[in-house]
């Protein structure tokens, strides 16, 4: 169990630093690359939590598609080399305060509520279980999501097309 905690620590540190990078960097492409680190870290955390399938879905969809889309959009809108001025607005200080307040409150709540809960894992979740859940219990949401995806696809094409 020690190994897992060490792994968690390293991953968590990397994720937080990279997340700060996403919101602080002055270079849009760097932000997307920091996002990759956060997402890969999250995938690794899922593996720690025995959710293998979700982890690889995360890699395939998030890193393999969403971030690519981001980079694509950035490059299509002429991402300049080097740093950009004016990526942030002037609400920096209030935002920091609000963020710290939020994190503080949440942490206090979590410590209060779940501090004695421990995760005990013996084996990774079989993918078949997830499949059973999706297609037996959550089949209606599954179909709803399918239609949403289709709508998003059509919507994106309609938006981006010039007539």
């Amino acid at each position, binding site marked *: 169990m020690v190994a*897992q905690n060490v792994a968690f620590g390293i991953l968590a540190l990397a994720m937080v630093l990279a997340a700060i990078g996403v919101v602080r960097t002055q270079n849009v492409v760097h932000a997307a690359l920091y996002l*990759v680190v956060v997402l890969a870290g999250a995938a690794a955390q899922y593996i720690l939590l025995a959710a293998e399938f979700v982890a*690889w879905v995360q*890699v*395939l969809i998030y890193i393999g*598609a969403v971030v690519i889309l981001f980079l694509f959009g950035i*490059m299509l809108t002429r991402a300049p*080399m080097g740093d950009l001025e004016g990526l942030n607005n002037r609400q920096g200080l209030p935002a920091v305060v609000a963020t710290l307040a939020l994190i503080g409150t949440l942490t206090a709540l979590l410590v209060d509520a779940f501090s004695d809960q421990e995760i005990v*894992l013996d084996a990774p979740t079989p*993918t078949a279980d997830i499949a059973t859940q999706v297609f037996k219990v959550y089949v209606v949401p599954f179909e709803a999501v399918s239609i949403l995806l289709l709508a998003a696809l059509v919507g994106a094409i309609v938006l981006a097309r010039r007539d």
Partner: protein
Amino acid sequence: MNALAVEIPWGVLLAIKAVVILAVVPLGALVLGYTFLLKMMSHMQSRLGPMDPGGFHGWFQLIGDGIKFLQKEDIVPDEADRRVFALAPTVVVISTFLIFVVIPAGPRLQVANLDVGVFYALAVSSLSVIGVLMAGWASANKFALIGALRAAAQLIAYELPLLLAVVGVVIQAGTMSLQGIVSAQQDGAIFGWSGIGNPFILTQFVGFLLFLIAAQAELTQTPFDMPVAESELVAGYMVEYTGFRFLFFFIGEFGTATAFAALAATLFLGGWSIPGVHGTAADLLGPLVLVLKLMAVAFLMFWVRFTYPRLREDQLQALAWKVLIPIALVNVIITAIIKVAI
């Protein structure tokens, strides 16, 4: 088995496996793939150059190439984003090596037998796009940027037929574990006759073709090599790379080709399995059989690569969306219906 939750010997085990992945696999992939394919290509194209160095069939060519790349000056363009520029080839190469982790070479010869092996392989192979985009953007070169954008659009488009082609196999085998798929083929039977098992190329022939075509596109090889089109974009996203960084891309290219060939061999040709051979014998013969099957697939892929012209970007997208994906979907549906019916 949970990759990070292995008990005590995991450190030692991981180190051994890391050595295997980092030394044996790429070296093997390179030496085998590069030498075999280069010679094959030289014969096909009446090339004299690669057949010359060292005498017999130009055996020195590979070593000479390596030395050449290593002694080249490492140039980073002035305007380039140095960190991203330096990191990009590594991302591509890492994505390549990660695929080899799940490919079984024998009943026990596998770095990690993941429950979702195929899915994992395809997921990590999509990471290389990030490296490509990084390289294209960080080079501060318009040709590189256009190449990277083309590569990204193409890799996203062909990810779908690739996945869907594999889905047919997964449905038939009933598992996503590569080891499971191999044994499903080894222990399978064709109409009750189990003489050669049931290599899925027989039942999933459409899937096999789709997989090869999509893999060709994922590898950005002719006829889908618009991103690196040397006659217009010079070398696309690689245009500013020299020396060992270029070598990294090169290793990534041939390594990924080998990896996809190995995946195709495992998914459709039965992988390491030889009908009737089990246990330790299979462990010993498995790698050899896998390499032979892999080479057969690679031969096919490179034959196409050295024969065909390239498709234009819009034609290539139309092929993916209008031809390959519908066929793949029909294939999945038919496979599912038959699976349920039987």
